[in-house]
């Protein structure tokens, strides 16, 4: 009986202290950000899908639907491609607001974060 309780208690403590996770669908982009001296980029899907349907970015703007497969450079954004199609001070804040996108904690890896369901055996 005591063994059983120990397992349950250790399990629930582990579950409890497991780190809080990002919002479902949040993407971290850090392919080159930190290498070039900027914090990682956090892209919140939830925020963007309230304002744009998937097809806008994933069809019109050409974002591949796989974290890590889009080779986005700051130069391309400044030239109005990818994020820069909207982040141009007209539709959304412009590129001079570095900190608002480059807002991630140091050392994060590029991938989809958020929720127990994305932390599974997938390849995101």
């Amino acid at each position, binding site marked *: 009986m*005591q063994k059983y*309780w120990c397992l*349950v*208690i250790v399990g*629930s*403590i582990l*579950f*409890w202290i497991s*780190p*809080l*996770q*990002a*919002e*479902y*669908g*949040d993407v*971290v982009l850090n392919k080159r950000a930190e290498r070039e001296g900027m*914090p990682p980029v*956090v892209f*919140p*899907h*939830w*925020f963007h*899908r*309230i*304002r*744009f*349907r*998937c*097809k*806008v970015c*994933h*069809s*019109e*703007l050409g974002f591949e*639907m*796989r*974290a890590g497969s889009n080779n986005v450079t700051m130069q391309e954004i400044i030239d109005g491609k990818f994020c820069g*199609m*909207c982040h141009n001070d007209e539709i959304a804040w412009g590129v001079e607001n570095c*900190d*608002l*996108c480059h*807002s*991630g*904690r*140091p050392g*994060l890896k590029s991938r*989809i*974060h958020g*929720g*127990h*369901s*994305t932390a*599974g*055996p*997938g*390849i*995101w």
Partner: protein
Amino acid sequence: MPDMRYSRWFYAIFFIPILLLPFLSVAGSKWRELSNDNIHDPDGPAIDVLQQPAEALSKLPQDTSGNMVNWVKALEEGAINPRTNLWPETKVQVRNNDLFLENTGEMPVVRFPHRAHTLWLDCKNCHEKYFISKEGANPITMMKILQGKYCGRCHGAVAFPLTECDRCHSVPRNKLEQIKAKSRK
């Protein structure tokens, strides 16, 4: 030597609260604060500027998984009206038919509603890249979906997660013909 066995009161007072903590911490934070979400830098200047998830998502139709928002319902009910295109010349297409994937072993048949998907996505997001537009041409398995292929490209990442079995496997085999007859062509 003292008795090594603890009384039941000891368990009750010390361990039951510990058992309840996970549920309390989950219930207390349906949407996490950005400063506490483990990916935003809590000391960065963006924290006070960016919108908090709870502020936006709590006003939308609720769900029990993912963002805790039923995104398709939000769209159909008009709670949100996200833009369909940036360029006026882009052709916005919506397809209304349902597909039935019957090769599901002992699980109920999968009903795939084109409408819910094309309200969000363009045809060429899925066709012919991930799904061939021909019945029976796509060898979909749950294992591939779990690895992020086929449906798993979005379900489990941004659309409702793979723990929601019965939302796709929604058609009991004995009601299949009846539901097919009623479904959108």
